[in-house]
């Protein structure tokens, strides 16, 4: 692999300062996307800034109505955390299906959300649960966060510190995984907040989004069969060797139907 400088700051201020003083800096979280990317030569930053040592990015707290998770929390921790499993099982379920076991032992929530891979799982939860993203200097509504393919509302050098997830009355996540990579070809999270339905979709478009058409139908009638009549346009959806845009649009409906079925069985 090419040569780079490696830094391990112990505060957000120090990390941002390192980033700002570098011609080409990149933050390293769990590394499960970044390190393969470096090895393949798809990115070659001069300065790698490892965020693992920053206390402010760690920790999980569960309060009434809200689960707050530090950005450096690894997927396996969310999958196994007893309190999250109790109050927000949909998030543990989602985290426990990211990639594979070894990847979940290293990959972090903040890294996934900052990277905003179109096929990542966490973005469906950020959107579907209406999460709030905290950075070192401001808060960003989940609805305003995802902008385009690998593009987010984060400014250069801005670091996600934690993400707050409101706790719905009930919720379910269904994904159609790519059988080789386990990335979501399509993933849909449906959440019921006292009768108000939110639907977060990942995998289908350039970035995660709210399926407002599906929400409108489910707000009238929370029934999987109600979705059969929904006409979901595939304009702008991803089309690649894994699935056509048309097939992805079909999968959004099928995954939403299954998630609603799961919710009704809770």
């Amino acid at each position, binding site marked *: 692999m090419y040569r780079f400088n490696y830094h391990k700051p112990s505060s957000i201020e120090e990390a941002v300062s390192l980033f700002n003083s570098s011609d080409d800096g990149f933050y390293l979280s769990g590394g499960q996307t970044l*390190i*393969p990317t470096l090895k393949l030569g798809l990115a070659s930053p001069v300065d790698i800034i490892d965020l693992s040592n920053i206390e402010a990015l760690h920790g999980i707290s569960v309060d009434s109505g809200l689960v707050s998770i530090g950005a450096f929390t690894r997927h396996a921790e969310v999958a196994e955390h007893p309190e999250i499993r109790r109050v927000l099982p949909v998030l543990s379920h989602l985290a426990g299906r990211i990639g594979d076991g070894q990847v979940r032992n290293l990959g972090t929530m903040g890294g996934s959300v900052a990277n905003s891979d179109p096929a990542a799982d966490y973005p469906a939860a950020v959107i579907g649960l209406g999460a709030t993203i905290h950075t070192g200097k401001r808060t960003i509504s989940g609805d305003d966060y995802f902008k385009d393919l690998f593009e987010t509302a984060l400014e250069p050098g801005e670091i996600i510190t934690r993400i707050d997830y409101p706790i719905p009355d009930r919720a379910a996540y269904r994904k159609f995984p790519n059988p080789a990579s386990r990335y979501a070809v399509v993933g849909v999270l449906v959440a019921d907040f006292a009768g108000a339905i939110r639907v977060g979709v990942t995998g289908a478009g350039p970035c995660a989004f709210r399926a407002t058409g599906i929400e409108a139908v489910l707000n009238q009638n929370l029934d999987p069969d109600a979705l059969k009549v929904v006409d979901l346009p595939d304009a702008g959806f991803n089309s690649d060797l894994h699935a056509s845009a048309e097939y992805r649009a079909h999968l959004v409906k099928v995954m939403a139907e299954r998630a609603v079925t799961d919710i009704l069985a809770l």
Partner: protein
Amino acid sequence: MKVSLTVNGDRHELDVPENTLLVEIIRERLGLTGTHIGCDTSQCGACTVHMNGRTVKSCSLLAGQIDGAEITTIEGIGTPEDLHPMQAAFRECHALQCGFCTPGMIMRAIELVEQTPELDNKAVREGLEGNICRCTGYHNIVEAVLHAARVPQSARAE
């Protein structure tokens, strides 16, 4: 850069380039070649080792990330005279053909048995998603993991 780590109980202080991967430290600096490099793109799991008790793909960790860590490789779990129960189960069930994926499979399977109280065929297959066998001998691998899961931990003399 200087890193210190413990591998199979032995402490090492090393000076390595920043771009060194954990698997390179294990194989090239410490000579522990039981950990294999298969795909080198974090898909195949042949390089799986334990870091602080959890499985990781050692081809996807930089030297700086493992500073202070405790690493266990396939060489650290048993000896030819005293196999780890998972190694014994792989032998018993003929769970290897070419053997290339086996060290990674065994390291992952040990974690799986430790972490999952009720293992069944489906849970083993899901748990081994990050480990690829290109002999496609999965049937006997699953059998071996289930076999080892039934052996009480106390069966192995320490």
